[in-house]
C-alpha cells in the first residue's frame, strides 16, 4: 500500500506542476514529459535517500521537518496571498516557475517526515495558482487536487493504521484503495463539474491588467508586469522566514499545553481468533419481507410484518425473545396480541393444518395491533445484544 501511496503522491506532484505550468507558462508536450520523467527520477532518489533520514533521531527529524515545512508553507501562503491580491500574470508566471522548481526539492525531501506535508502543501500551492486561471483547467486542478490528496491521505491512513497494529498490509490494500476511492471520486467529480458550470471561461491574461488598474493597489510595479521587482521577492522570503519562526514557536507553545487524549498502545502481538458465525448458516436477515407460500407462510408473513412495524415504532423484538415473551413485553392490545401469537406459534412450530380462518385472523390481527401501536406507541426500547444486558421482558 505504501507503494500505491507513493504513486499517488507522485501523481499529485506531477499534476500540480502540469496544471500550474499549463495555466501560466504554456509548456509544450515535450516539456511536460520532461517534468514527468524528472519528478519520477527525483522521487525515486528521494525515497532511496529516505533511509538516511531514519538514522536521525525521530524527535529531531520531526522538529526539522516541521521547521522546514513551516518555512515553506509560510512562503507559499504569502506568495499566494500576494498573487491573489495582486493579479498580475507576470508575478504568477514567476511564482509558477519558482514553485515548480522548488517542487523538485520537495519531492526529493519527501521522506524527511513520516507525513510528507511539505510536498502536499507545495503541490496544493501550485494547484491554487492553476485555480486562479479559472475555466476548465481550474476545475480540473481543483478536482484533481481533491481527488489525489484525498486518495493519498486515505491510503496513507490505512497503511499507518495497519502498521501500527502490526497487521500485514498486503491483503488489505485493494480494500483500502476502494474505500478511499468510493469517498473521494464522487466529491472530486462533483466539484469539477460544479466549477466548470460556474466558471466556464478561463481568465485571459490581458484581463488581469484591467482588473488591476481598476481596483487594486499594486506594491510598486504598476503596469510593469513583465519586470519583477526583486524587492517583492525579498519581502516574501523575509516575511515567510519570520512568519515561519513565529508560527513554529507559537505552535510549540500551544502544543505544550495540549496533553491531548490518552494515547493507546497497540498490542505487541495481534492475536486474531477464528471467525465464528453468530447465526447458523443461511439464516440471514434481509431488509425485504421474505415471501412465504401457503397458509402457513401467510401467517408467518403477517407476524413478521407485525415485528417490522413494532421495530419501526421503536419496539424491536430482541433476538433471544420468543413470541410469547415479545407479546408479554409489548402488553397492549392484549387479546389481539394473544390471538396472533397463538396462531403464529402454531403455524411456525406446529405441524397441524392452518385454516383460512386462521390466516384471516392473523392478517387482521397484525394490522389491528399495528394500528393500535401507531395510536399508542409503547415505550421505546433499546436493542441490547450485550450478554450483560438487562434480563428479557424489561423495557428500558
Amino acid at each position, binding site marked *: 500500500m505504501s507503494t500505491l501511496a507513493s504513486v499517488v503522491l507522485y501523481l499529485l506532484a506531477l499534476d500540480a506542476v502540469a496544471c500550474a505550468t499549463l495555466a501560466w507558462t504554456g509548456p509544450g508536450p515535450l516539456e511536460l514529459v520532461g517534468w514527468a520523467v524528472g519528478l519520477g527520477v527525483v522521487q525515486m532518489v528521494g525515497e532511496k535517500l529516505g533511509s538516511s533520514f531514519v538514522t536521525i533521531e525521530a524527535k529531531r527529524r520531526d522538529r526539522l521537518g516541521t521547521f522546514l515545512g513551516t518555512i515553506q508553507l509560510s512562503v507559499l501562503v504569502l506568495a499566494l496571498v500576494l498573487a491573489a491580491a495582486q493579479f498580475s500574470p507576470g508575478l504568477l508566471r514567476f511564482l509558477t516557475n519558482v514553485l515548480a522548481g522548488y517542487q523538485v526539492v520537495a519531492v526529493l525531501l519527501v521522506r524527511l517526515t513520516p507525513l510528507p506535508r511539505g510536498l502536499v502543501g507545495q503541490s496544493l500551492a501550485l494547484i491554487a495558482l492553476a485555480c486562479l486561471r479559472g475555466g476548465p483547467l481550474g476545475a480540473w486542478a481543483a478536482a484533481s487536487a481533491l481527488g489525489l490528496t484525498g486518495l493519498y491521505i486515505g491510503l496513507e491512513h490505512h497503511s499507518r493504521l495497519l502498521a501500527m497494529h502490526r497487521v500485514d498490509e498486503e491483503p488489505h490494500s485493494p480494500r483500502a484503495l476502494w474505500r478511499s476511492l468510493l469517498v473521494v471520486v464522487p466529491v472530486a467529480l462533483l466539484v469539477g463539474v460544479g466549477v466548470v458550470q460556474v466558471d466556464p471561461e478561463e481568465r485571459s491574461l490581458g484581463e488581469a491588467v484591467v482588473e488591476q488598474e481598476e481596483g487594486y493597489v499594486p506594491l510598486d510595479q504598476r503596469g510593469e508586469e513583465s519586470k519583477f521587482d526583486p524587492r517583492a521577492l525579498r519581502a516574501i522570503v523575509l516575511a515567510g522566514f519570520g512568519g515561519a519562526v513565529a508560527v513554529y514557536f507559537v505552535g510549540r507553545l500551544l502544543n505544550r499545553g495540549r496533553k491531548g487524549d490518552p494515547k493507546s498502545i497497540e498490542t505487541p502481538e495481534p492475536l486474531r481468533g477464528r471467525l465464528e458465525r453468530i447465526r*447458523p448458516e443461511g439464516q440471514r436477515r434481509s431488509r425485504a419481507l421474505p415471501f412465504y407460500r401457503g397458509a402457513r407462510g401467510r401467517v408467518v408473513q403477517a*407476524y413478521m410484518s407485525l415485528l417490522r412495524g413494532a421495530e419501526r415504532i421503536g419496539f424491536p423484538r430482541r433476538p433471544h425473545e420468543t413470541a410469547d415473551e415479545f407479546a408479554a413485553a409489548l402488553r397492549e392490545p392484549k387479546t389481539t396480541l394473544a390471538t396472533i401469537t397463538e396462531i403464529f406459534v402454531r403455524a411456525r412450530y*406446529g*405441524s397441524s393444518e392452518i385454516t383460512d380462518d386462521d390466516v384471516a385472523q392473523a392478517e387482521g390481527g397484525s394490522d389491528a395491533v399495528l394500528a393500535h401501536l401507531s395510536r399508542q406507541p409503547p415505550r421505546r426500547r433499546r436493542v441490547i445484544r450485550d*450478554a450483560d444486558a438487562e434480563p428479557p421482558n424489561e423495557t428500558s
Partner: protein
Amino acid sequence: MATEGTPGQAEPAHPAAGGLPIFTRLMDNIEKVILGKREVIETILSALLARGYVLVEDLPGVGKTILARALALSIQGQYRRVQCTPDLLPSDVTGVSIWDPKEMQFKFRPGPIFTNVLLVDEVNRATPRTQAAFLEAMEERQVSVDGHPYAIPKPFFLIATQNPIEMAGTFPLPEAQLDRFMMRIAIGYPASTDEVNMMRAQRELHPIRFLKPVMDAEHLMKTQDAVRKIFIHDSVLSYIQRIVDETRRHPHAAFGSSPRGALHLLHASQALAAIRRKSFVTPDHVKTLAEPVLAHRVLVKPHSRVQGVDGKRVVEEVLRTVEVPVDFEPR
C-alpha cells in the same frame, strides 16, 4: 402429523381443543400438597413423562420429600423410599442373595430399588459406592447382583433430594452421576399468601393423607410413549443444539453440557408441551426447561466460581445470547 403425536391415547385430543385433562388432574392433585408451586410441579412432571430422573436440591423443610411422595401417591404404583446415610451399603439398595436352606439355593431378595417410584432422600449422604449402585440402576434400568442382572419394573421414576447446606460429612455427587439426572430443581420458599394457605390446610392433618391416585402405571407408560411422538420443528431442534453448544463455549464454563443434556432437553420439552396441551414444542418450552435441565451439567471454571458464577448463571446468559428462531429459514 401433530394430531397423531398427541399423547395420552386414553383421551382423544385435538391440538386446538388441546386436551389431556389427565395432566391437569395430576397437577391439581399434587398442588393440594405443595401450594403455589405450579411451575415446579410442571417441571417435575415433565421429567416424569420424559422418563428422566430428578434431583431436588433445596433447603430443609421446603417440601422436597412431600413433593416426591405426592407424586408417587398420585400414580398408582409401588413407592419406596431410601434414606441415605454414610453406612448405607450398595446391597441395601439393590438387594442381596441369601441362602434358602429349604430349597438349598441362593434366593434373591430385591432391595428398595425394585419399585415404580423411588425417593432417594439426602443422596449426598450415601458413600460413593452406594451412589454408584444407583448409577447403574438409573442408566441401565437393571441391577446386577452376584453377576445376575435383574430388571427394574416399569415405569421407574427416581427422585433424589439433597441439601445444599450442612456439607460436612457428605459426598457430593460426581459429575458423571449428575449428568444422569434429567433435571436439578429447587423448590424455593412459598409466597406469603401460599404459606398462610399451607398453614391453614395443614392445621389438623396433612392433606397428603387424602391423596388419591389419578393414574395407574400402565397409563403412565402409555403416556410416556405418546409424549415422545410430540412434533418438534427442525428449527426448534437446532435452537436446542445452539443452546447446548453455547454452554460449551461460554467463557465461564470449563465444560458445557453433554449431548445427553441436549437429548434430555428435547424429551423434557416434549413432555412440557404435552402438559401445556400443545401438540408441538415451541421455543418457550425449551427456554422454560433449559435451566433445570442444563445448569447442573455445566462445570464452571474455578476462577469464575470465585466470582460467584454458577451453572445457572451460565445458562441464563446463554439463553440471552442464542437467537430464537422466528423467521423461516430460506431453503
